């Protein structure tokens, strides 16, 4: 179980570092522009900058949580000790790890966008700097759905994992059922 927790930690910290590099690179590249060329940042530019800051904060939070509060997340992904008695205990673990991995990525994509949407809607549009009709309803709704999906996946997507495990086991049982149904021995 401890090995699995370590594996989970390594994978998720790797993802956190990837996010940090991914978001830090354009920020570093655009820093000279902000510092030397254009001192007056447009509302769009500020929204962009704000979303960068939130993305970095999110990546740092994930890495911090995995370094210092590792048991909090990895324990939930690996599952209870009682589950280890089951022969296929690794099956829900694998699906749960994939779900959490995807959830962290989803939130990494959606949090900066939501921050910039909120800023544009609530601050810039009220000041008249940006037309209120800049964002379409489908844009906003899709980000809300992505946020909800990200949170659900980060929680380990319990219903979906259960469904996937059931379907996987069903697919594994097929030859035996075929044998039972046909009455003939199915060579494996």
């Amino acid at each position, binding site marked *: 179980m401890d090995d699995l927790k370590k594996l989970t930690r390594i994978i998720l910290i790797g993802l956190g570092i990837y996010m940090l590099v991914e978001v830090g690179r354009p920020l570093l590249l655009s820093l000279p522009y902000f510092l030397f060329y254009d001192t007056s940042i447009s509302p769009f530019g500020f929204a962009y900058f704000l979303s960068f800051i939130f993305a970095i904060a999110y990546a740092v939070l994930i890495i911090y949580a995995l370094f210092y509060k590792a048991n909090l997340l990895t324990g939930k992904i690996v599952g209870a000790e009682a589950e280890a008695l089951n022969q296929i205990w690794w099956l829900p673990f694998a699906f749960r790890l994939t779900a959490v991995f995807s959830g962290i990525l989803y939130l990494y994509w959606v949090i900066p966008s939501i921050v910039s949407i909120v800023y544009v809607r609530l601050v810039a549009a009220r000041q008249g700097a940006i037309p209120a009709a800049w964002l379409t309803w489908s844009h906003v709704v899709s980000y809300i759905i992505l946020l909800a999906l990200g949170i659900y996946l980060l929680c380990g997507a319990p219903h979906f994992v259960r469904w996937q495990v059931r379907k996987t086991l069903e697919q*594994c049982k097929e030859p035996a059922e075929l044998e039972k149904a046909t009455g003939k021995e199915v060579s494996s």
Partner: protein
Amino acid sequence: MTKMYLLAKLTLTILGVFILLDFLSYLELPSRLTKGYSDAVVGPFLVTVGSLAPLCILAYYLLFKSDNLARKMVGSTNEDSRDASRIWVVTGFRLTMFLCGVLIISGSIEFLVRVAGFVIVGPRLIINMIFYKYIDTAFRLGFREWLRLFVDVCRAVLGIYLVLGTPHFVRWQIRKLKTCSRPKNVENQTL
């Protein structure tokens, strides 16, 4: 089938899925090339077909005919001949397809929201079309827009199918792996 062979197959399948996605994304290319140049249609069309065909062939090869390549990737199985049981194969394929699907569908959420919106207002538009002979601007799309719609539909359907674990594809892979010949130096066959 050894676990290393399964790993190689899974890697090639993931590559195949993303190349297929690339192929779908580039389907829009002919309309972009011909935009504003209505006279020059044949040239850009041929160039696009020429550049898309290798992608399509590669995706087909990686998804459906990658056994030989996977065997070559694994190399000699003397050192590691641990067999992969059926549950490993099914889980491996379903898991990788689920991950690919989740990543693909994140880009299709807005399209799905628009589809849901259309389902709500669509009947009214269709009734208008039938009774009042009025064609809404929503249906007045050019070739480029129809092509983009087609690509979006394909991407969303692919994403949903992958998230559901591609049951038909997994079943087909298992059937194929069962019948395909194993490397000669491995005696014990589990699958």
